[in-house]
């Protein structure tokens, strides 16, 4: 999914403590993984995160819904396994 300035949308996931589940905490627009990491770390720095990850929104495949932010990534019916 393309954002402004030819950037891509990256979703941000994080957990506060070891062993907790990762939570989706937001997204950033970035030109590439290097900037996505920096933007995520500086934009969502309200917590002392134990772990933070980013993933390009185009790479998230929804399983049971066709709406929401990742719905456009759903494979056409018949191709999904």
């Amino acid at each position, binding site marked *: 999914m393309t954002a402004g*300035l030819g*950037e891509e949308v990256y979703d941000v996931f994080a957990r506060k403590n070891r062993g907790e589940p990762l939570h989706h905490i937001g997204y*950033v627009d970035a030109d590439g993984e290097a*900037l996505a990491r920096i*933007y995520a*770390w*500086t934009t969502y*720095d309200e917590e002392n995160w134990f772990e933070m990850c980013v993933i390009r929104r185009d790479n998230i495949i929804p399983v049971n819904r066709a709406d929401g932010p990742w719905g456009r990534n759903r494979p056409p019916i018949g191709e999904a396994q």
Partner: protein
Amino acid sequence: MTGGKHSSDPPPFARHILSLADTKRILGIRYSDWLLGAPSIETGIAASAMAQDEWGHARLLYSMLKDFGFDPFEVEHERPAARYYSAPALDEPLEDWAGVVAAVAVVDRALEVALESLSSGSFELAQSRIPKMLAEEEFHRSFGDAWFRRLSDAGGEGRKRLESHVGAMLPSTLAWLAPEDGAYAELVSEGLVRSAAEVRDRFDQGFAHLAGAIDIEAAAVEPDRSGWDEMRRRGPGAPAEEAVERARGDRNRALFVE
């Protein structure tokens, strides 16, 4: 003080620390100018984080001067522009985003190399405090490298401006990073910092891949040592008054509580 030796001049090692601290403080101001003018909200937030890092690092470096009999409050809040030791490339505001990217890639990187050099030496406070700064600097370097690549790969006006800013910043920054004067040689001989040749080599190794992207051979760039002032550990000039007023906190003097 614009040249010549005065009885009140700090000793060489204190001048070295001041030079790093002042450069970080002015760099923080230059980053802060772009918090609301960066190409995207995320980029502005990153610039804000980097500005905060630079000011935090500057504060830690200024505090090291206590060991040399200096009052950090006076050093931070009382000096005129002519007694700042900051890298000349930051004297004037960065005029466009390509200038910010060049400053991250050239000046921030030079600072990182200088800090590594200081932390590798025999000064214990530097050994204990600088590693955390270097960890934070990794983000600055990634940010600068990614934006540098973005502008150089895009070509056109952005690349042209980047080339121009890098070309303007490199010679004076290389002279600032690796002084060839007696004061710096003294620090090297005392085991406090790496030799000028070694820090230059480390800078070139880190910067070569970016320089190559805009057809500059990093190792071939000559430092500009014209007008070198050994006592201020930099070339001629001084940071613009507007930056020094902000660095000193002139508008907030009534609120100082230190």
